[in-house]
């Protein structure tokens, strides 16, 4: 194989980026992994094993090992579920919505984002199953004909959620695989040995003939057009898991747009968190430039502003609406025993992104990386505050209010989810093109002889 098995030296960037340069630079990322890669992969697998051990203990001794205590029965696992579904969203925003808007800069980053989507939904999907406790009955969620004549209640938002997440996972996986086909074919044509065999199968016989492109481009467009309303619907439906209930702090009409904006915000931050090391590890500085990071930062700023606005609106309406229960819930949120969680969320999500108004910060990769991690922490706490703190301080029955403290089982499973996500992601970027070969070429000027 010319590219992947060649020494990992970086080809000198030509004066003008050519098609050939793009193919070889991206194909080179699939070569034999470095030690740094194995270290990262080892760390991910290590985290995953911690999660698996905790999960096995919970299987044996029950959900009591997690910190559930009355009235908080939706806690870290549901927080993680919403967190990971949210992470997924910006991937579809970048790959589908920006595709429909024909924004050229997405081509260099969308594959990473799309892969992140698929693995984040895979991670998110585990949490409802962990949360139900008796995992071996998970199929009860599915409407299937059974002897008892029982069916799920389609008026329940939890069933909507199941359909939304299931559809989202299926469609984003299709979208990722479809986009990969021409790129895998490009790598196949350079590869030798076992990689050649792998890509020969996964390219599905793609040759880039006019007949293939004709159907591919049309189908890709329609998939993007279907994925766009889907991504908006998924986090809306996730928000309705809460908004349909009458718990103050959950029962708000603002929830759907608020959750969608928050999801895209956290997802863009995660894209930055993932792209920075990948760009360094694979020396992709020519293809993924400061310009891309600046655009991601602008997206982060925009959605961060929407999230900040939603926080303001929530507190304002709690006060201005004059509903004593609502007011009590938000007072508990800001000044109750969980004040630290609420203020972490507000500082990380509403105040820190204001730094992105400065171009110096938007174009400083290190600053962006650090900021993106803070955003992720803040967005995890946002879900924690909404879910746990609203339940703990539920003002209709203040005598039941109680504290909730996550245990080692909660933290272990959460750590495991990060390991699971990063493991799949790292395996993906080493075995399949992490930057789209065909789409990066599409934004370049085609080679012209200029004679005709």
């Amino acid at each position, binding site marked *: 194989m010319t590219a992947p098995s060649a020494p990992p030296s970086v080809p000198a960037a030509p004066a003008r980026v050519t*098609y*050939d340069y793009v*193919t070889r630079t991206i194909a080179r990322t699939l070569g034999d992994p470095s030690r740094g890669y194995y270290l990262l992969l080892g760390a991910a697998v290590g985290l995953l094993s911690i999660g698996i051990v905790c999960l096995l203990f919970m299987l044996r001794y029950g959900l009591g090992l997690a910190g559930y205590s009355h009235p908080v029965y939706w806690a870290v696992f549901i927080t993680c579920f919403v967190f990971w579904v949210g992470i997924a969203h910006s991937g579809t925003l970048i790959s589908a919505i920006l595709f429909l808007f024909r924004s050229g800069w997405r081509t260099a980053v969308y594959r990473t984002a799309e892969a992140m989507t698929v693995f984040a939904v895979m991670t998110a999907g585990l949490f409802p199953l962990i949360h139900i406790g008796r995992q071996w009955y998970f199929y009860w969620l599915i*409407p299937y004909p059974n002897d008892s*004549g*029982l*069916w*799920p209640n*389609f*008026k329940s938002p939890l*069933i*909507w959620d199941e*359909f*939304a997440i*299931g*559809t989202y996972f*299926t*469609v984003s996986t*299709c*979208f990722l695989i*479809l986009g990969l086909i*021409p790129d895998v074919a*490009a790598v*196949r*044509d*350079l590869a030798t040995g076992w990689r050649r065999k792998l890509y020969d199968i996964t390219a599905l*016989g*793609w*040759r*880039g*003939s*006019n*007949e*293939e*492109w*004709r*159907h*591919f*481009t*049309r*189908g890709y467009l*329609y*998939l993007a057009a*279907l*994925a766009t*309303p*889907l991504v908006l*619907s998924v986090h809306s*439906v996730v928000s309705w898991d809460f908004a349909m209930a009458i718990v103050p702090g959950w029962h708000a009409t603002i929830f759907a747009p608020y959750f969608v904006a928050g999801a895209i915000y956290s997802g863009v931050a995660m894209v930055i968190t993932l792209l920075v090391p990948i760009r360094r590890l694979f020396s992709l500085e020519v293809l993924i430039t400061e310009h891309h990071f600046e655009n991601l930062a602008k997206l982060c700023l925009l959605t961060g502003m929407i999230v900040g606005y939603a926080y303001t609106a929530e507190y304002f309406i709690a006060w201005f609406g004059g509903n004593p229960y609502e007011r009590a819930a938000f007072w508990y949120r800001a000044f109750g025993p969980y004040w630290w969680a609420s203020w972490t969320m507000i500082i990380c999500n509403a105040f820190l992104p204001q730094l992105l108004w400065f171009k110096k910060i938007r174009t400083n990769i290190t600053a962006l990386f650090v900021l993106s991690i803070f955003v992720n922490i803040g967005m995890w706490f946002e879900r924690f505050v909404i879910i746990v703190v609203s339940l703990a301080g539920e003002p209709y029955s203040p005598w039941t209010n109680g504290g909730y403290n996550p245990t080692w089982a909660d933290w272990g499973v959460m750590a495991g989810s990060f390991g699971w996500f990063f493991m799949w992601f790292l395996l993906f970027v080493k075995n399949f093109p992490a930057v789209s070969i*065909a*789409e990066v*070429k*599409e934004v370049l000027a*085609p*080679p*012209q*002889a*200029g*004679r*005709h």
Partner: protein
Amino acid sequence: MALPNPLKELFDRPPTPGVLGVFAHLDSAVAAIRTLKAGGHRDLTVYSPIPRHELEEALDQPVSPVRMFTLVGGIAGCTAGAWLTLWISYDWPLVVGGKPVGSVPPYVVIMFEMTILFGALSTLLGIAFNALMAARRRGTIAYDPRFSNDRFGIFVPCGADRAPGVESLLTGSGAEEVRRA
């Protein structure tokens, strides 16, 4: 005695005779397509590393039928969603909050998700059916690994008698390499 193998003919078909031209430049390939079409050549196979509208315009192909797959899939999904939720509601009637057993507003969510799911899967099926079938049918047509990198290719199916003419035509349009298959 060797037994006849009907699968051999299906999977090991002989290569299609013709001429393959390799182009380094997009405009040369477009010019060659126009000249070939003017010369009465049909059924060209044009390879390119990326989809280019210049090639599409020169080839002047009909719009892909994939859109019908998307439409039919979407409608089928919406119908399936409505049927699933309503039929299940009446099969096991459950009155929630004094609302009708079959309440359509919450079912719209399911209908919407099923529209997207079926629409997307059927789009994928449409692409697979059309593009993979095309690829399979064209599996006997000469290919060059450079076409997925930075070269454009035109394959003209023709017999040995017409091949020299096609060869000179492709070279004249700026092909950097021409070979017979």
